[in-house]
């Protein structure tokens, strides 16, 4: 009896405190400015320029979204300054897309992204991208036939990643690779078209500093180099000419894509042998050769093979020598084979990477030629 009375008293006490608790925050949806996309640009001196996209739930405005633009020294100060322009309280729990202007990206984006992973409100699967020119222009521009810009960008980046035309890049992957000594991140690179946004390859980073970019064709190669791309198409220009004297094109669709990395060491130089086994189907061919004939098919396979090898190692060389960036995580693989210990890891990995010898071998097998031969 006494026990239950005490339990009841305690429960009542808790209930009372819960109701009367002082700092209660009203969080009705109409009173919240739910930020869905945010952009950062380099401003004057130490400041950054930022703008946010807020979907309109209320019926007061004509536009589907609100775009606010302001400046501040830190990302949260920026939010504070932006908040003074809005009748709503700005919250960042629903951020889906973050854009960085190219200028800002080239000076390192970590100082402005700290809040993205310190703040528990923000999810880890949001999409990041670097833009050609000022990022805020992407929000202020109108896209007549598209959904509002936040949803547009978000869906587009997701789709591109799913189709392996972009390597996997979200906040989690970015942070993981920035911190990792044996790996560098890439982010999608966006360009403004006439009435739309175009994914124009990727921006390549060394740690958190953008050092260059790859065009869409090279980006595809990068995506294949990273392995695991089971779907995707690639277009080849072949040496042969057809009857009308035009160059022959072939498009191969991957059905199975395997990557194997052999790692060895010679006199302190890492040696990487990347082997790819591709099984695919021809989905377009403008030549005259009969593809049901074994020799013709072999010829085509060899042509595809050498073309792929050339462009893949071209991308690799560009990354290694020009950008000195390692988005494939090759040095992480090198470390995992036990060539470098944990203590000396950070200092030596980047130095070793620049001395590494990279070789690409591709095996192509054409399984089908489509409905015709």
């Amino acid at each position, binding site marked *: 009896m006494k026990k239950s009375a005490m339990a009841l008293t305690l429960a009542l006490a*808790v209930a009372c405190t819960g109701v009367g608790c002082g700092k209660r925050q009203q969080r009705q949806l109409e009173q919240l400015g739910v930020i869905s996309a945010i952009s950062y640009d380099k401003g004057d001196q130490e400041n950054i320029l930022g703008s946010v996209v807020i979907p309109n739930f209320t019926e007061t405005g004509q536009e589907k979204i609100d775009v606010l633009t302001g400046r501040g020294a830190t990302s949260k100060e920026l939010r504070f300054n932006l908040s003074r322009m809005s009748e709503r309280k700005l919250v960042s729990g629903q951020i889906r897309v973050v854009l960085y202007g190219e200028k800002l990206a080239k000076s390192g984006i970590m100082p402005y992204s700290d809040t993205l992973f310190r703040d528990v409100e923000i*999810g880890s699967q949001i999409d990041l991208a670097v833009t050609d020119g000022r990022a805020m222009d992407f929000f202020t521009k109108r896209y007549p036939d598209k959904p509002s810009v936040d949803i547009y960008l978000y869906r587009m980046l997701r789709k591109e990643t799913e189709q392996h035309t972009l390597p996997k890049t979200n906040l989690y992957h970015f942070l993981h690779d920035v911190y990792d000594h044996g790996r560098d991140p890439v982010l999608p690179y966006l360009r403004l078209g006439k009435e739309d946004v175009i994914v124009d390859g990727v921006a390549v980073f060394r740690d958190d500093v953008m050092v260059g970019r790859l065009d869409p064709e090279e980006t595809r190669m990068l995506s294949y180099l990273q392995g695991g791309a089971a779907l995707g198409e690639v277009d080849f220009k072949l040496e042969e000419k057809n009857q009308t004297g035009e160059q022959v094109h072939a498009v191969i669709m991957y059905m199975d894509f395997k990557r194997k990395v052999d790692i060895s060491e010679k006199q302190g130089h890492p040696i990487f042998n990347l082997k790819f086994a591709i099984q695919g189907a021809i989905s377009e061919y403008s030549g005259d050769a009969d593809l049901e004939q074994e020799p013709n098919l072999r010829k085509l396979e060899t042509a595809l093979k050498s073309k792929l090898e050339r462009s893949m190692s071209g991308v690799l060389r560009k990354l290694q020598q020009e950008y000195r960036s390692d988005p494939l995580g090759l040095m992480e693989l090198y470390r995992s084979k036990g060539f470098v210990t944990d203590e000396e890891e950070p200092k030596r990995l980047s130095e070793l990477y620049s001395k590494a010898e990279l070789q690409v071998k591709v095996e192509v097998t054409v399984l089908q030629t489509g409905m015709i031969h």
Partner: protein
Amino acid sequence: MREAAVRHSETPAPYAPEHPQHPRNRINGIELMFLLHTVPIGVGVLGMVRFIADKAGHDAPLAVLISGLYPQVGVLFMWLLLKRFRTMGIYEIHQQLFGRWVGKIFNLAFASYCLYAFFMTLRTFTELVNTWLYPMMSPWVLSLIFLVPMIYASYAGIQLLGRYAIMTFFLTSWILVLIYFPIMEGSSSYLLPFGSNGISRIFQGSLLSALSVLGFELLMVYYPFVSYKKDVLPAATIASWSVTLVYLINAVVSIMFFSLPQLSKTIWPMLTMFKHVQVPFIERFETIVIAVWILKVVNTAGTYLWAGVDGMLKTIPVKKWVLYGLILILALVFSNALHTRAEINTQLNFLSKLGLGLMIGYPLLLWLLSLVLRKKGVEPS
């Protein structure tokens, strides 16, 4: 009429609710096993991989595997000690070994340690809820809300705690399924090469997981309440290795999911991992995990609270409800007094060292002392 009278006289004499022979104060081997398994898995596991990886690097899973030896060794020493004193628990052993008054001091010290561990569990979890869910809520309000089920469970005694532990286990084991998502993102190359960091660093790393294996020292408090003393050693052994298995899975997945420098910056790697879980109908799964984790924390803290109160009651003449009231007030006061991350971290470091000593060194010491002093438990009459 006569038969009925005889039958009545045959039923055992009713015990007072506080008496160890009272049915509410008995636990069987299964309940003991689940108690020992679930109590160590509290708040510590959420952040443990970070500390281990700081020292052991990519070999953190190996370090965790080695740290499985600590509870096992501790259990062995405790078993040696407890076996020598027959049905006695740590509080009775103190008095038998050191005499009445010195024994009382030791009793109070051990009980205070249990209450300290109880309080730190409560406070760390409050901090976590503060960080992840309710940044504005003051710690004492959260503490009060969590204290109600903790005190309620521990007031009811050991049998309820044992059964509650079984329930906690089954209600939280589904969380294991969620590791599918981080594993899909992770890369197995981070686990290699095995043992490259050298034995000394792996060993240091394993010591840092001490905070998460605390809970086995309570075996010395449970012991007088266990019905069949033969069950104790197998139950404790199964519990200790199953705890290690859970931690091993956690360590492997964390190392695969994070890059090392990123891991060393993350305070609660396990929650950050669950943050990555996204299913079509729910994003931000960690919120649900934290809510479910309250079950575990109530289990851990409630059991520690019970162990501390049990010791206090056996040592000083005080009413049970007065003691609980006092603890409630003190817990509220202290939870507001201790409020920065840095302070909490210092306290936790101290607690983990103290606890590891109490789990392994202390039973060994007592056992050796009892050999030297030629003291042992007497057969109950």
